[in-house]
Structure formats: structure tokens, C-alpha cells
């Protein structure tokens, strides 16, 4: 048996390091941003380089409505978190559900756009460089939206069961950071694909 | 030109070390980067000697410090107390920041200058232009203005430093990445599909210069060897004339030629003036003018030629040429035909 003794003074100072939840989420956001950056760089690099097949300006229509939906969902989730912080779980539920609905609408919009591109315009991931980079970049974003919606839905289910209370506001806020990130990425993707690249 | 200390050491010791390492009577390494024979290689050697001098000086200083510290500040057995704790020194930190920054600036300027000299060199009108196309695992050479297509052995004229006649190479690839590296002539430049590159050499001495592919390109990357024959103007012109002629085939179609043209050989190989015009493999019009086959892998002897035709994987396993399943008489006939392609 070994023993050691150490004198430990009581903590006298005020000590407020940052909370681990937001720190971890910001790190995840940084990592995901790096992934998106590479896909955006590839997209930009290949603008105008497709040898054959449909070109962006021939087939892309600016998805204004669905963009408004997604960006508004940032606003709704912000309200949801605010209400949860002040303990108004009912309002939180409403705005949270609205967020999911708006995010879901965005995904439906992407699906409709892709159906048109594939079956009417003949643009697939194999068609040309534009097809490859477009579906990869927009698809990667849509994948992140999907994952976000799954997480949001899980929280919604917990909330409907009555398990989400005011003391969980910080954790819910951490999740909302991810959602804001997804929206911010869409701003970039939208600009690159539908404005610069067209 | 002053003889720098490093150059002196290398000049004296280099051959001694290398001669020690090789069997008696053989030459120094034919691919020694410190034996330049062309301007780009020479510029690189000059820069590298400068860099070596600087880094050697740094090494000597820092190593001396390390050795001193390790010896002088060994723990003395009698010493019980902890030594004086020194936490830092702004002046020292400044000193060993500023001095390295200055060294970096000097090295950077030296390197930048040579980059400009090599990469932005002018393309004079009398330059020889060769298009090099890298394949798995051989080299295709085309002289567009001289109407010559050949493979694996590059012939270029020597360049008189007073009136330079450099050779400019345009580097393309038919499949994966390769790299053209003949150390005595220049640094390496890659051949990348869909990304044409360009380099130049102006060898000052005639002779045979060796090298090999320097970017992993697949199974037989190791045997994608380079042979550059630097010839006098007259020899080069003669070679060009011979290479631009179509194949001298006899009017009677030999058995070997018949097999060659009926089997899949012509799908890959070309023999100018006959029906064979495949581009996947080396052009064979003047096969017997080459010293080696299989991109330098083996000497061009009757026996090697027969082995190669019979089954290339015995000489270069993993190369792209398949064994055609020819019988021995068929192999001999084809070889006899190829041996007429001078």
C-alpha cells in the first residue's frame, strides 16, 4: 500500500472557464467547416471546366423560397431556445416544431430540385464536372440538414414526453449552434452555386 | 569562381567515397546530382552548395552548443541543491529570432532567383522541341517539327554554352502521374494527365545520361528507366533522318511480319509504313536502333527480344504488354521480323 500526502489550499479565486458543451460544438463546427471548404474549393475550381453536358445556367433555378425557409428556421430555433431559457416549455415546443417543419420543407425543396435535374435536365453526378461537384456539395449540405433534423426531432420527442425542462436550455442551445452552422453553410453554398457559379 | 569549402570537400571526398563504394574501375555514379552537365542542373548545384554551407554552419554552431551543454552541465555527484532557476531572457530570445530570420531571408532570395532562372527561361528559336508522353511503363518521344516518333531512348543535340541550342520538353501523360528525372541534366518535372508541363535542358557534353521515372506510377515504376543520348549536331541530324524514314520492310511479307500484323500486336504498336499504327505501346519502326528494350530494363539482344515477345512478365512483371501465347517458332519469326526494323 502506498500513501502520499499533498496539501491542497481551498479554492479562493473566482474560476469561470468556458462550458465544455459550446466549446465542443464550436470545434465540431470548425471541423465541418474545413470539410465544406474543400468541397466549395473543388466546386469553384471546376466552374466552367465541364467538357460536355448541361451547364449551371442552363439548368439551375435560384431556390429562393426554400432558402427563406431554411434561414427562417435559424430565427425560429433562436426563439425556441429563448423560451426554454425562460421556462416557457409550451412556446419552446411550438417554435421548435416550426424549426423542424421549415428544415423539412427545405429538404423537400432540394429533393424536388434534384428530381427535376435528373429526370428532366439529365444532370446526374456522373454527367460532367458540374454534376459531380454540384450534387456532392449540395448533397453534403443536405446530409448535414438531415442529421440536424434527426437530432431536432429526437429533442422534440423528448419534449413531447415532458423530459425537456428549463435546466436543459444550455444543452438545447448547443444543439441550436449546430443548426445555425448548417444555415450559415447554406448561405455560402447558395452564393457559390446559384450566384457565382451560374 | 571561388572554390567554396563545401565544394572543395565534395570534390575531394565525394569521388573518394563513391569510388570506395563501387567496384574498382567503374565510373562514379552516372546519376549524381553533384555532377551537372546542363544549365538547370548546374544552377541547382550552385544554389545547393550555398544552402549546404549555410546549414552546415548552423549545424556546427548548434551542435557545439549541445555538446558543450551536455558535458559541462552534467550532474555533479556532490551537488545537493537545485541549480539556479532561470525563467527566460528577452535579449537572448530576440537574438535567436532575428538571426534566423535574416538567414531565412538570404536563403529565400537565393532560391527565388534560381526558380526564376529555370522556370522563366526564354525559348530561343533554334531550340529542339520534344513532346514526352509518359505511359505505364515507358516513355514516348515525339519531335513534332521533325516528324519523328520514337520511344524510350531520347536523342538530343549537344548545346554549346557560347551559342546555346537547348532542348525544350513538353511533358504529358497518357495515364497516371510520372516524373522525368535525369539528375545530371536537370531537376525532375512531373508528367500529369490533363496538366501539361514544360522543362528544358542544354547538355554541354555528349554522352549517355541516365535517369528514371520518379513518381510512383504503378507496378513497374521501378523499371521505367530513362536514357538520354546527347549527340553532336551531325550525329543528331543523321539520327533524325533515319528515324523519320518509314520502316524498311522487304517487299515479301515475312512470316514474322504476318504474325505481327494478324495477332493483336498492331493494336498497341506502330511500324511506320505498314498497317501497324497502334499507339498504346512503343513505336517499333526503328526498334533495332535502340540499345535497350522495355524502357531500359534490359539490353536489346536477340535473346532478350525473344524472351520479351514470349512473355514480357519474365523481364518486367506487371508491365502492360501481355504474353500473346505464341509458340517458339512463331516467337522466332516475329523476332526475326523485328530485327529488320533498323
Amino acid at each position, binding site marked *: 500500500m502506498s500513501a502520499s500526502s499533498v496539501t*491542497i489550499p481551498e479554492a479562493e479565486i473566482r474560476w469561470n472557464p468556458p462550458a465544455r458543451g459550446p466549446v465542443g460544438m464550436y470545434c465540431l463546427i470548425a471541423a465541418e467547416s474545413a470539410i465544406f471548404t474543400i468541397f466549395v474549393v473543388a466546386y469553384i475550381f471546376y466552374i466552367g471546366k465541364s467538357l460536355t453536358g448541361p451547364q449551371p445556367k442552363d439548368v439551375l433555378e435560384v431556390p429562393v423560397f426554400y432558402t427563406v425557409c431554411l434561414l427562417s428556421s435559424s430565427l425560429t430555433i433562436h426563439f425556441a431556445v429563448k423560451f426554454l431559457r425562460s421556462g416557457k416549455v409550451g412556446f419552446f415546443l411550438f417554435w421548435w416544431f416550426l424549426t423542424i417543419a421549415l428544415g423539412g420543407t427545405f429538404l423537400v425543396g432540394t429533393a424536388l430540385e434534384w428530381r427535376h435535374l435528373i429526370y428532366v435536365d439529365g444532370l446526374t453526378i456522373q454527367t460532367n464536372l458540374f454534376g459531380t461537384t454540384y450534387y456532392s456539395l449540395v448533397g453534403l449540405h443536405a446530409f448535414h440538414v438531415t442529421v440536424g433534423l434527426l437530432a431536432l426531432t429526437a429533442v422534440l420527442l423528448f419534449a413531447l414526453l415532458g423530459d425537456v425542462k428549463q435546466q436543459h436550455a444550455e444543452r438545447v442551445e448547443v444543439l441550436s449552434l449546430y443548426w445555425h452552422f448548417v444555415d450559415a453553410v447554406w448561405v455560402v453554398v447558395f452564393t457559390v452555386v446559384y450566384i457565382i457559379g451560374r | 569562381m571561388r572554390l567554396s569549402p563545401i565544394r572543395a570537400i565534395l570534390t575531394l571526398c565525394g569521388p573518394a567515397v563513391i569510388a570506395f563504394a563501387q567496384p574498382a574501375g567503374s565510373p562514379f555514379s552516372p546519376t549524381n546530382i553533384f555532377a551537372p552537365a546542363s544549365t538547370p542542373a548546374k544552377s541547382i548545384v550552385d544554389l545547393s552548395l550555398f544552402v549546404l554551407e549555410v546549414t552546415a554552419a548552423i549545424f556546427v554552431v548548434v551542435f557545439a552548443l549541445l555538446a558543450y551543454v*551536455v558535458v559541462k552541465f552534467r550532474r555533479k555527484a556532490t551537488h545537493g541543491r537545485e541549480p539556479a532557476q532561470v525563467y527566460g531572457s528577452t535579449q537572448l530570445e530576440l537574438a535567436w529570432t532575428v538571426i*534566423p530570420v535574416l538567414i531565412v531571408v538570404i536563403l529565400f532570395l537565393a532560391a527565388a532567383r534560381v526558380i526564376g532562372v529555370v522556370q522563366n527561361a526564354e525559348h530561343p528559336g533554334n531550340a529542339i522541341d520534344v513532346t514526352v508522353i509518359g505511359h505505364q511503363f515507358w516513355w514516348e518521344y515525339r519531335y513534332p517539327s521533325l516528324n519523328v516518333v520514337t520511344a524510350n531512348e531520347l536523342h538530343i543535340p549537344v548545346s554549346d554554352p557560347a551559342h546555346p541550342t537547348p532542348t525544350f520538353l513538353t511533358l504529358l501523360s497518357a495515364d497516371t502521374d510520372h516524373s522525368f528525372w535525369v539528375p545530371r541534366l536537370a*531537376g525532375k518535372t512531373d508528367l500529369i494527365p490533363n496538366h501539361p508541363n514544360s522543362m528544358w535542358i542544354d547538355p554541354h557534353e555528349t554522352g549517355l545520361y541516365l535517369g528514371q521515372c520518379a513518381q510512383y506510377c504503378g507496378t513497374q515504376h521501378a523499371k521505367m528507366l530513362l536514357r538520354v543520348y546527347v549527340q553532336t549536331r551531325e550525329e543528331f541530324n543523321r539520327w533524325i533522318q533515319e528515324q523519320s524514314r518509314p520502316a524498311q520492310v522487304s517487299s515479301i511479307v515475312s512470316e514474322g511480319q504476318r504474325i505481327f500484323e494478324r495477332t493483336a500486336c498492331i493494336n498497341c504498336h506502330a511500324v511506320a509504313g505498314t498497317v501497324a499504327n497502334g499507339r498504346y505501346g512503343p513505336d517499333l519502326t526503328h526498334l533495332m536502333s535502340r540499345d535497350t528494350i522495355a524502357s531500359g530494363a534490359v539490353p536489346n539482344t536477340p535473346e532478350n527480344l525473344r524472351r520479351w515477345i514470349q512473355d514480357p512478365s519474365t523481364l518486367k512483371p506487371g508491365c502492360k504488354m501481355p504474353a500473346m501465347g505464341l509458340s517458339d517458332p512463331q516467337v522466332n519469326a516475329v523476332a526475326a521480323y523485328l530485327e529488320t526494323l533498323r
Partner: protein
Amino acid sequence: MSTESITWATPQAATPPPLVEQLHHWVATVDHKRLGILYILYALVFLVAGGVEATIMRIQLIRPHNHFVSPEVFNRMFTMHGTTMIFFAAMPLVFGFANYLVPLMIGARDMAFPRLNAFSFWMTAFGGLLLYFSFVGGDGLYGAGSAPDVGWFAYAPLTSQTFSPGHSTDFWILALLVSGIGSVGTAINIIATILSLRCPGMTLGKMPLLAWLNLTMAGLVILAVSPLTAAQVMLLVDRFLGGHFFDTQAGGSAVIWMHFFWVFGHPEVYVLVIPAFAFASEIIPVFSRKAIFGYPIMVAATLCIGFISMSVWAHHMFTVGMSAAENTFFVFSTMAIAVPTGIKIFNWLATMWGGQIHFQTPMLFCIAFLFQFLIAGLTGVMLSAAPFDWQLGSSYFVVAHFHYVIVGAILFTSFGAFYYWFPKMSGRMYNEKFGKLHFWLFLIGFHLTFDFMHIPGLLGMPRRIYTYEPGRGWDIWNLIVTIGVFFQAAGVLVFACNLFWSYFRGQVAGSDPWDAWTLEWSTTSPPPAYNFAALPEVKSRRPLWDLKHPEDPDWHYE
């Protein structure tokens, strides 16, 4: 100010639980110390695997036109050797030590996200198994399967379906994709732990250098591993969905793969070497009996290195045909990074200056590190001069340079770290005599192999060739290089036996066998699951120095 004296004891071991239960504890653990040890043991196993692959290659290259293995096998060997050593030996080693040490050194009970920690380890572990499964299950459509053979940086278009049919390349992609997720998870954990869980009083300016260095390393992982993940997803799109990211026939670019890969690849080597600096920064002061010289500058230099390392990547592409302006930029940024790196070497020397140097095994490895890292840095400066790199790039000179860093700097300091922290992790001292034997054997082998490896590069020998021509002057050097391998293998064998034997029979170490100054030495060896009975409060960078020297504590000075 009131204080409490706390005495605690290592828990009395009752009859040890059954083996199955013990194994279950290891498999299901979320304790950072156990995960750290799992990472380290995992790394050691793959270090040996990579070493076997290297030995096979060196035997094949011992003389020209050798026939020890076929070209296909050789090409798989160098691919697997590089991939194994970087992703499944070096990175797990680095993460293992970070996992074990960071919470202890900042006075925390565990990492910020213990379950994420376990998840990350098992992802990394699975990646390694996936890669090695390719030897068995890699057969593809044309029988062109088995282990990947495209080189560890897998240049396009060699990796396309056209040139690499079958599934060997897919194993490479998936193994790294999976373990990359684990790496990012660990990095997130390290950053959150350091930022959020420091004990009271430990401001960022008071944490041990190891914490700063691991913080920087974790930041680099987050920014650098992600581009590799992205590029590998793109490669999968090309290979399986008919995409054209790197399809030169469709107008795609092979060069863009190189950019994406090296944007990962260069910061990756700093991910590996920065923790090596961390080990040196903890060991050298203790064995010189002096505080680290220039702590603030060391932090600043580390952050500079991390920052600049994101801007140097295309020095791996000097021969690719970038313009003179692009080449010149990367020469500049690469040479610039030499400045903060050199500053660190000077600071370590200044730490030793005026000290009382103890030449035990950890310190021997760190002194050798200083010597070898100096040389490696200088050959790096040579390579940074782009025209010189036009000759030396893709040759054995580069291979010698980076092995000088990875083995000579990273592995040497890692060995030092093993010996230094083994008493803390196991509660027992290793055998010092055999530690020194390991050191000398490995030192001799390392120098035989990697000093002489520079020469064939200078004489024109490219890398990744399964054989070479006689008469190029390369023969004798390859022979010497191969001989060194056996000394290194002997050293590693001595090391493994020493650790194994000492774990069971070594002298009991106590909590602070080295008379050191950072928080991990204030708790028992091995620490209890909760690390510290009460979270300590610190007032300086060396809390134990303050306790041992109450008349002259650090916080009087800095």
C-alpha cells in the same frame, strides 16, 4: 488562507476480479487513463507491424535486382508501411499520451467527453483492423485485390477504378475515413478538456507546456484531418458513383487531389511532431533540474508553427509544375516555419544550460532528439529551397529526411515519454540498464539506416522502387541502410521485454520517482480512477515546485 492536508492511499487490492470482468472493464471503459493505455498499446502493435513491412522492403533492397519479394508485394509494403506508421502507430501514440496526461496535468478528473473518448478510440482501432483486413479480404473483381498498393498518399489518377480495380484502394479510403472520425473526436475532446476543465488557478498561462502543445495539435487535427476526409469522400464518389473529381479524362484534375491531400498531409506531420516537442518540454526541464526556459516564447512559437504549417503544403508539389510565383510563395512559408522551430531548440538548450543534467533513459532519448531534430530541420531547409527539391524530391533524400523527423525526433521522444511516465502509469520503475541498452542499440541502428539513406538520394535514387540498377553507385549505401534495421529491431525488442517484465516485477515507483513538478506527480502511481481526491488549486506553472520550495516558489518570478 485555510488548507487541508489530505492523505490517500492506493486502494487495497482485494482478490482480483475474474479475467472476463477485467477484460470487460477495459473494453467498456471511458476512463481517460485506460483509453490512453489502450491507444498506446494499440500503437505499439502497429509499430511492430509497420516495422515488419519496412524490414521486408529493406531486405528486398539490400542489393540490386534482388528477388526477395515481387514488385506487387513490395508496392503493397511501402503503401501499408506508410499508412500504418502514420495513422495507426504515430497518431494513436500521440492521442494515447494526450489522453492519459492532459487531464492529470491540468488537474481534471477526466476528459470533457468521456464517452466520445471511448467512441473515438474504437473508431480509430476499427480503422486499423479494416486496413489490415485488406490482406485477407481485398480481392476484387479482377483478382486485383489484397492490400492497397497506391502509396500512402494515393495520388490520382492511379487510385481511379481504371488503374486500381478491385477493392484494395477502397480499404485504404475507408480505413482512413473511419479512423479520421476518431481523430477528430479526440481532438474535440482535448480542446474542450483544456479550455473547460482546468483546475482553479490554472490560467492558460499557467498550464504545462504539454497542455499548450496538445491544444495546438488538436486544433491542427480539426483543421487538417477534415480536408482528407473530404478528399476521400470525393474519391469514393469517383470510384463508386462515377464522379469526375479526379478524372482527367473528363477534364478533372489530378493536381487538385495533391492539393487536398497535402493540405492535410503537411499539418499532419506537425500533429505528430508537436506532441514530441511536448514530451521534450516536460522531460528536459526535470532532468536538467531547471524550469523550462522562455515559457511564453515557447507558447508563441508553438502557435506560430501551428498557424504557418497550414500554409506550406505545396512544398510537397514543387515538381508538379506550379508557376514560379506559386513555388516562390511556398519556399517562403516553408523557410519561415524554420524560425519558430529553431527558437524552440535554442530554448531547450538554454533550459539545460546551467542545470544539473541527469542522464537517465528519458533524458538520453531527449538529448538524441535534439541532435536529430536539428539535422532533420536542416535537411528540411535544404528541401525548402525549391530548385534543390527539384533534384531531391521524390528521392531517398526526402525519405531520409522525414524518417529523421518521424523516427529520430518523434519516436525518440516517445520512447523518452514511455520511460518517463511508465512509473506513473504502472506504479513500477522500468529497468534502467536495459533502458540504456535499448537507447544505444536503437541509436546505432537509427544512424546506420537514416544517415546513410541520404546518399542514394543525392546520387539519383528515387523512392518507391522495388529494385534498382547496379552501376548507379547505390549498392553499398542500401546495404548499410538495411543493416541498421536489425539494430533498431533489437532495440525495440529490448524495450518491449523491459516494459513487460517491469510491469510485473519492477521496483515500486511511488507517486513522484523523478522529483518532478507537474500535477500528475502529486497523485498516486497509478492514479485512482478519480485522479485527485480534491481538485487542486495552483498558483504557478510548477505547483509541486512551489510545494517543495515554499521559500522560493515560482510565482514570485513568473
